[in-house]
């Protein structure tokens, strides 16, 4: 808690009031953060291996997937260390397997969105009707078909995006940033201690 408070206050005073800039304290903290992040990757690797090794050892449900994860993770890492990140086999696996599978999974969202739009956009209330009409206008505005149907379709879509959307978004963003600042201050002042662990996620001590 003391480390969090000191680190937080150093950054706050340095950023907001330009105090202590001559000692380059924020840069030093950035350096420490980078080194910690690099170690965190190794820690994550070890932790993931430990958890899935236990799953395999105790024959928990779906343990073959845990075994698969351990083998693939370590084999790919060793291959990368042996060949470097642009090595022929390392790169081929990345391009032909990882990239394609990942893009496919993302692409599947299109089907779910289509089905969800069909079920969700019902004119049950006036608000729902407004949302549905706005959604259809923007959807056609983004696709070239909108302009093909009516030359000004894109302008109407842009108006919705640039005025109605931005007004709402700006309010949400300001609220979110003010909220983040409040949470940061609570953490620095020691009022929020969930990040220290052991107390339970989201526990607040007044």
């Amino acid at each position: 808690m003391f480390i969090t408070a000191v680190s937080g206050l150093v950054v706050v005073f340095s950023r907001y009031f330009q105090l202590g800039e001559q000692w380059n304290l924020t840069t030093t903290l950035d350096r420490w953060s980078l080194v910690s992040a690099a170690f965190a990757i190794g820690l994550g690797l070890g932790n993931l291996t430990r958890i899935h090794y236990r799953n395999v050892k105790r024959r928990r449900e779906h343990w073959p997937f845990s075994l698969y994860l351990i083998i693939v993770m370590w084999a790919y890492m060793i291959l990368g260390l042996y060949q470097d990140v642009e090595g022929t086999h390392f790169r081929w696996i990345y391009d032909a397997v990882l990239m394609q599978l990942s893009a496919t999974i993302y692409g599947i969202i299109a089907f779910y969105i289509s089905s969800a739009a069909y079920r969700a956009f019902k004119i049950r209330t006036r608000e729902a009707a407004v949302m549905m009409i706005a959604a259809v206008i923007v959807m056609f505005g983004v696709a070239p078909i909108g302009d093909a149907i009516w030359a000004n379709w894109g302008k109407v879509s842009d108006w919705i995006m640039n005025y109605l959307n931005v007004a709402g978004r700006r309010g949400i963003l300001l609220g979110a940033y003010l909220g983040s600042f409040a949470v940061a201050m609570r953490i620095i002042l020691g009022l929020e201690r969930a990040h220290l662990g052991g107390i339970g996620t989201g526990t607040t001590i007044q």
Partner: protein
Amino acid sequence: MDWSERLQQIDRRWIYLFIIVMVSIAILRPLGLPVRITDTTRMLYDHIESLPPGSVVWLGMEYSTGSIAELNPQIIAVVHHIFKKDLKLIVSGMWQDGPMIAQGLIEPLAEKYGKEYGVDWVNLGFRAGGTPYIRLMTEDIMEATAGVDHFSKPLKDYPLMQQVPRLTKEYVDFIIVADTGTPGSPEWLAYVSDPQGIPMGVCIIQMSVPGMMPYVQAGQYVGLVPGLRGAAEYEILVGETGPAVTGTDTSSMAAILVTLFIILGNIGYVMSVRRKEQE
């Protein structure tokens, strides 16, 4: 089950099938509908166009492989423009996939335009740490990257990196960030672009556009390339039409189909409401 219920409860598998058929038709037989250039895409294009030859453009690759369908065509089109304009390019990534994807995209283009690695462009690779990483680069790139690039080769050997010791306005003329999440363009804006006064533009997926528009209106982003449509627009602007132009036809077909299903669902809903009122 009467018609009002049937229209409201179309099996989702039919919807999936129609989507596959319509999208396949658009890919196999492109409609070739004209693509209007949106203001935000033109703004980014115009800004790059205004940079004098030799200017340094920084590309933050902050996305993973899931978004390649939308963002890769954007990056290809933008890099075409950068190399055509004879600008220098430096690539970095807070996301581990970003520089890997960039390498696969930029290498063939560099070869096409006769650009030499280390002289005309450099890939700094991925570094863990997120925002402290990019902020530290404003102080010292060598230190932030541990002095090596994507291939673990020393940066000091590259003429381009000898010219650019820090990520500041003095050395970098423009930042482009391609992102799909956090850390992404808002972090670049808060920790590098705004404090250093370096103009910045973004390449994003269509889903992120509503969230980024306030930054464009505020002038914090000098331009924005929106999704696959934006990629098609940029391809047209640089005169390198590719997969994105065809891809926009798929979004037209999908828009028609989704709207048809929404209309059918609502007809069913209105019918059922009227029937209940009559009862």
